């Protein structure tokens, strides 16, 4: 399987040896440092959003350290070497999803959490990244183009994850997981005739899904999507406080640690899902723009790596991860400003939360490992 990538001048060129250097170790120095900057920015904001809790910040720093270590470790690997592991990690994800349904952590209303004693996490947060990567690895496990069956099996694999998360029940996350699975399938070049076939099946099943599979509150949630004023879940208060925070920040913000909405606890979950509102309130539109530029830069680097990568597997994996990263940012921001309903998606690399940080950094490890030295 150790097929040498074509056009690999570096190996053939005796003048540029694989000597140790920053760029050798960090792969993409620009990407690495922009990630560090946004992590630092996250810690900076978390300190404010958590009500200046040293404990929460230290915990987050521990997770960041673990994540960075894992990221750099993965970055050193050759993609070909872990392609099989990636493909089979699907089963691990599946196992976690089934486990959480059978044996959920106590103290939560829904069965979404696994409690390890020192650390509890949501398998759905892990599956968001495992699923797309395993699908890419599966589709490109051979050199030849994926067959019709490959496409269908990949789709079914995503559907299965969707169903298990939906059973928790968590429709919002289920949709996000499913979308993360569909992105690589689409990017990998699923033929349009299959897509059309899917659409026809979906269209014919949709009335049944609406009336039989969706719970009442999920139906309401879908309806709120079209009519945000109606507020059957009482989430309106959270959103309206969040909007108040964002709007009141104005252009330049109220100043670090001086956001009244944030510091006086008017923003719910200000340290995790709603940290965006804190940033907006305290740093204003300008702060947001700086953050968006950083995110944009990271995404640009990811796609740059993707387009320069040597194999289809690497390319599709990289750009899938890029899109998923973008998707998470979008979902979080659109949720916080009140455009889409509230779903539990943290702001990547900034929100408090161990799983989210580690999983995202691992994904960047995968991206970095695919960076082709020029």
């Amino acid at each position, binding site marked *: 399987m150790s097929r040498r990538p*074509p056009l690999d001048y570096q190996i053939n060129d005796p003048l540029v040896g694989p000597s140790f250097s920053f760029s050798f170790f960090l792969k993409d120095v620009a990407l690495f440092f922009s990630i560090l900057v946004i992590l630092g920015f996250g810690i900076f904001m978390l300190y404010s959003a958590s009500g200046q809790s040293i404990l929460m910040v230290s915990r987050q720093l521990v997770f960041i350290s673990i994540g960075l270590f894992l990221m750099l470790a993965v970055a050193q690997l050759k993609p070909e070497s872990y392609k099989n592991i990636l493909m089979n990690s699907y089963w691990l994800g599946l196992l976690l999803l089934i486990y959480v349904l059978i044996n959920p952590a106590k103290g939560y209303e829904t069965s979404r959490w696994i409690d390890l004693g020192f650390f509890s996490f949501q398998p759905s947060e892990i599956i968001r990244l495992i699923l797309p990567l395993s699908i890419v690895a599966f589709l490109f496990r051979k050199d030849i183009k994926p067959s019709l069956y490959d496409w269908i099996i990949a789709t079914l694999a995503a559907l299965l994850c969707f169903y298990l998360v939906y059973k928790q029940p968590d429709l919002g996350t289920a949709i996000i997981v499913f979308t993360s699975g569909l*992105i690589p399938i*689409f*990017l990998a*070049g699923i033929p349009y005739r299959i897509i059309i076939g899917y659409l026809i099946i979906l269209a014919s099943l949709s009335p049944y899904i609406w009336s039989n599979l969706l719970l009442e509150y999920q139906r309401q949630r879908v309806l709120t999507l079209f009519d945000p004023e109606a507020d059957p879940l*009482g989430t*309106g*208060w959270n959103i309206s*406080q969040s*909007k*108040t*925070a*964002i*709007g*009141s*920040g*104005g*252009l330049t913000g109220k100043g670090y640690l001086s956001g*009244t*909405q944030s510091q*006086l*606890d*008017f923003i719910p979950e200000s340290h995790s899902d709603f940290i965006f509102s804190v940033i*907006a*309130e305290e740093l*204003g*539109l300008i702060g*947001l723009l700086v953050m968006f530029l950083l995110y944009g830069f990271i995404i640009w680097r990811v*796609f740059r790596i*993707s*387009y320069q990568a040597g194999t*289809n597997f690497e*390319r*599709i994996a990289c*750009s899938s991860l890029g*899109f998923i990263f*973008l*998707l998470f940012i*979008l979902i979080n*921001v*659109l949720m916080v*400003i*009140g*455009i889409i309903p509230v779903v539990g998606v943290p702001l990547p690399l900034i929100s408090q939360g161990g799983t989210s940080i580690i999983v995202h950094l691992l994904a960047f490890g995968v991206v970095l490992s695919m960076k082709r030295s020029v």
Partner: protein
Amino acid sequence: MRIAKDLRSESNDLRRLKQRSSFLFLLSGLLILVGVLKIIQLTVLETRDYFTESENNRIISEPIYPARGLIKLMDGQIVAENIVTQELLIKKGLVSKSIDELKNVEKYLIDQGTSLDLPLIENYKDFEKITILSDLTDLQLAKFQVNKELWPSVELNTRLRRFLPHKNLFSHVVGHLGELTKEDVVYNSEIKYHPGSYLGKVGLERRYESQMRGIRGIKKVEVDVFGNQIRELERLNPVRPLNLSLSIDLDLQMTARKELGGRKGAVIAIDPNTGFIKALVSSPDYNPNVLNKSESGLSFSLNKKIEAPFFNRVISGSYPPASTIKPFLGLLGLENSVIDQNTEIDDKGIFQINEEGRKYRGWKEEGHGKVNLHKAIVESSDVYFYELASKLTIDKISTFLSLFYFGRETGIDLENESSSILPDKSWKLGNVGEAWFVGDTINIGIGQGYITITPLQLALSVSAIATKGKIYKPKLVQLLGKEEIKPELLFEVDLRDEENWKIIEQSMISVISSWNGTAHNLYTEGGLKIAGKTGTAQIKSLVDQELTVKEEYEGIRAVEKNRDHALFVCYGPIPNPNLTVVVVVENGESGSSVAAPIAMKLIKQYQKEVVADV
């Protein structure tokens, strides 16, 4: 060759990836556009609104209510005070978010099966607080404090409630408070109330609402989402309200209430020289504390309901003055020289204008015989006043009585005063739709027919005889804050001959002191010299000309509510009267035996107190 093919397929793959990526970028771009526009809308276009909103969230202006002004008597006795009760509040903006907390309150703090009754929360602004539970018991208070983490958004507040230590005694003087209604807002437009406020509904509580309320202060505090105060930003102290001191004499008031004994009726005692009211009792009454929510139970027993316990008979009850009108008509007769002291008629028990005319009967079947003015007042001859009235004509009667505040509001510092009816020709045309007949005038001669008067008006007009013409505005409040309220002369009746006052007064003294006086039953040898006049107001007219008065009465007496009202007016002691008393006992039948003893008792008791004070 193989490398070239690989190259081609690789570049094909890359091209397809870029195509498909572009599609996804396009989708993302649309979402980004939506997001960016929304963020600009929030942070740039509408930032002012949101900033205001965040300030409203953060800073609450808490009103500081001064404790309502006290009502006291001149000797310092408390009539109405404020007692502390505990209540639970929640900010309106937190209600939808705190459903679980409210459920906890329901579960732990109130009786099983009952639920909190929240007021209409639409009326409140987000930062205003709603009372969810009031008048906490000690047990509820303890449970609330112990389980605070179950309801972080709910806060404890103390509230003052109005309490009258004497309960019913002052109900028709002080009145009660009630929750704000739309109509109140119009009445007191200069005061800003927030929903749920209590304010005076009747009586002094209403009339002196603005003075007793004071002006609320405001403190601006920074709060967190649970309403916990972080720090105080600024404070505007409230303006203390004014206390009232009433002219009411506690013992007199208590005696008056006790003597009425729950019968329907009214007692008013007033100082004729100043207009200050010494006792004001309307019966039945109610317990204002129940309406003030400072006491539980019923404000009056249910069987009293048809007797209108909320109706203030002293100022709003209109009764025929009956024979109590006679001294005034006598005075008018003397003034106009229609009669003099010696004018005599022969009272045979019946009066007719001419031979064929209707027969007007006197209360005494056989008549009073030869009657002059003095005897007519002392024995209350109806026939004498039938004749006098017919000679005086309604125009003169009505003009003259009006001077004594018949048919006019007195301007007492209470609400809902009735002006009653002083009829004249145009009044009858307008309200009955008929021309004035001589018969109407004759009826007025004995205070019956269209004419009515409130006990308060009667007290004022009788006081005018006591003071030889001076009429003072009736007042309850003698001290408003530190300001001493001065007596206010409303009018002074000027007689052509001042001697006429004395003539009438002499006759009224004889009503009690003469052996033939209608209230001679009250006379005690060497006792106080008191001028009085009885009255018995008919409710049902005696219509059957064939029956004797006595026979016809038997039929009417059978039904209690048809029985006559007993009236008595008096003032004393002569020559320096210091108290005028008017007593009305509804369906009490006899002015002399039912109403008069109450009045006499009050005057006598008052003299003892005045002597004791001096």
